[in-house]
């Protein structure tokens, strides 16, 4: 691969309190929640999110715990669907593996004699574990979710079956938003990391391997600008 392929592509929404749009700023000072602009467009039409949706603007069929009555989800973000490819390929290979390997293993391990019913139970156990493997990997993707609402940003990280981490920040506490795209695969499939920096000692929020990072950064930038306009 050409070294230039791995050069980071970075973008940043620079926020300014000035009335004129600053460099890189998407938001118009007059933008309101329901007017045009990334946020206005996102809220203007509702879309149903599928179970495989990695980027759902204004999803009509998603709610979350402790959602306030007047709070609307603008964007639901998961890792790009292509990031699931390794485990899907492995699961397919493992599902057909017994067809090819059982006769070979029967020859190699011919000194082992177990009854047919035990062999069947072993095979069922194998496919049950495979089903569990698929469920775990799908869950790790499905629940690793970022939500951008009209009031706040929520980042739910589910890195392990026993480990989940939820961070949220209000829009008015966000200082800066930027994104990074590194490498050929990320460029081809247009996904990257969106980093949302918050004020003070609060932890930053990161949408890891999110599709269309520039659009996400646009929307967050627009929200922040809108919040500042409302405050001033």
């Amino acid at each position: 691969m050409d070294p230039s392929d791995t050069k980071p592509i970075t973008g940043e929404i620079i926020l300014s309190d000035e009335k004129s749009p600053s460099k890189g700023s998407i938001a118009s000072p007059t933008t309101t929640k329901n007017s045009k602009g990334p946020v206005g467009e996102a809220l203007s039409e509702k879309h149903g999110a599928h179970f495989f949706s990695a980027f759902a603007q204004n999803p009509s069929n998603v709610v979350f715990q402790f959602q306030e009555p007047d709070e609307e989800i603008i964007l639901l973000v998961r890792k790009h669907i292509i990031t699931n490819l390794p485990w899907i390929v492995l699961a397919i290979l493992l599902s057909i593996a017994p067809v090819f390997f059982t006769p070979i293993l029967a020859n190699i391990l011919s000194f082992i004699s177990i009854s047919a019913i035990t062999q069947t139970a072993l095979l069922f156990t194998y496919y049950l574990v495979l089903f569990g493997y698929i469920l775990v990997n799908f869950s790790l993707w499905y629940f690793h979710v970022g939500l951008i609402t009209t009031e706040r940003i929520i980042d739910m990280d589910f890195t392990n079956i026993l480990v989940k981490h939820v961070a949220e920040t209000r829009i008015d506490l966000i200082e800066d938003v930027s994104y990074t795209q590194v490498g050929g695969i990320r460029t081809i499939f247009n996904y990257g990391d969106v980093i949302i920096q918050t004020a003070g000692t609060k932890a930053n929020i990161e949408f890891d391997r999110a599709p269309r990072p520039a659009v996400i950064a646009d929307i967050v930038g627009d929200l922040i600008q809108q919040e500042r306009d409302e405050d001033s």
Partner: protein
Amino acid sequence: MNTPDILQSLLLLATNQDILFKIGLVLILIVYVLFALILARQIFLLNSTVNQISFSPIFNILVFVHLVAATGLLLFVLFLL
């Protein structure tokens, strides 16, 4: 049952590959059922945290089927084999 009989039974058990496999399978399935239980509980909780109305109930059912299948297989190995 006296001591030689017990030793004889243990020797028979140790040399019977089928029984050894069944014991191994039971132990694996006990651990697996616990894992399936934790997975089900975690997914039920997460589905209530972020509820994708059209898919969350299906996902809950899939996870429940997984738990039932694991328990069923354990019971099958324990009592029928």
